[in-house]
């Protein structure tokens, strides 16, 4: 029993640290926690378009908001 708990904790730790490939195999595209946020293309404010992938590489805070 104690060993099982230990094993479980180890797995949780591994997931938290995130060994890349193991994570990616399970990862899906979506907007939920743990998923890969899907790329999108939308109009920008200058009459053109832009996408999320133009800004990848850093931490991103994506805020949906409104002026009203």
């Amino acid at each position, binding site marked *: 029993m104690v060993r099982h708990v230990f094993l479980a904790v180890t797995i949780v730790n591994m997931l938290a640290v995130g060994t890349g490939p193991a994570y990616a195999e399970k990862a899906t595209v979506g907007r939920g926690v743990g998923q890969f946020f899907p790329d999108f293309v939308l109009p920008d404010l200058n009459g053109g378009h832009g996408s999320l992938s133009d800004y990848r590489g850093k931490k*991103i*805070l994506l805020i949906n908001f*409104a002026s009203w």
Partner: protein
Amino acid sequence: MWQKITKPYIESGELTVIGVVQEQHPDRAKLYRQWHQFDWPVFVDALNTFDIAAVPIPVAIDESGVVRHAQLHPRDFVAKFMKRSYANASRPKNDKVATLPDPVQLANRARSSKTADDWRLVGDAYFLRQGANDLERAVDAYQQALKLAPQDGRAHFRLGVTLRRRFESAGRMKGDAQAAVKHWGEALAIDPNQYIWRRRLQQYGPRLDKPYDFYFWVDKARADIQARGERSVELRVEPEGSELEMPNVGTESLRRVSLINRDPKGRITRDASQYVKIDVIAVPHVVRPGQRIRIRVEFLLDPARRPVWNNESSDLMMYVELNKEMMIGSGSLSFPNPKTAESREKRFIEFEIDVDDSTAPTTYELPAYALYYLCEKRSDKCRYLRQDFRVKFAVSPDAPTLR
């Protein structure tokens, strides 16, 4: 709030902030951004393709693109996101870089699949392209979607957004604004919890149904920007009427507007060739007994013959014949003349109709007319004209409430 707490991390190069604004008018978002000095990119999701039901929604995404918080609270931003380190993760195989969708290709797919979802995507693709005639094509595609799935709330909402956009464009067609309201109303009836959809109707709706005046900030923004010595972003469509009017709070007594029928016998010459195009918009298009409807009547001078308003006489006025269960509560039935002798502006009259509890549920087409002075430049002829129209709306106990 986010502006302040994210700034040091943007400057240190650790963070990118991206805004997605849920707004009908992109230029208003641009003014808002300039006012608040957001130095991060903002995208416009007028169609709500994100399918969110509320704002704001701050999503925290790590360096690899993995969502770490789906609704991050500002107090957790530093400790639970910026201070955390996340291991590299490789992206799943089905994760693709998004490109501007090709509507022609999507339409081919929709024609063979015959699904509402595929037609909706065609509409989204045309709307997104923002090219000439794309609004027409988007309207057609959403209508195809609704033929296949009349209960597709998203298609209703997005068709409404597209029609409203067309109404405010050179390609405006009579009835566009009313049709937009109708589709937003149908979307809301399908999902009354969709806050973004509800807001779009409230924007143009009666004061009773508004939590606050949505675009109250525009004047303040312009003043602040000017005080900084900058030139503020110009708005293509100025907020007006219901968009600016203060909500009717609590027990504020109503200002009843008296109805004057200035031409009961119909003796004033009719504007038979329609020098003035009249468009009537009722928001919401279906109302419950005991509720209120906001009516907006727009008057546009015929762009081909280009007559002018003659402002040296009385104001443009209208009359509407109400049923006995209805009353005009607040608003005005005239448009005051500008100071210049002649002008060519779009005119509008906005007022609200109180529909009594005892009003029978049915469709109403109230007879109405407008009286105006105008001059035809070619012949230099000035005339006092009357044009008849109808104010249409429905009363039903099943109408969705806006509040």
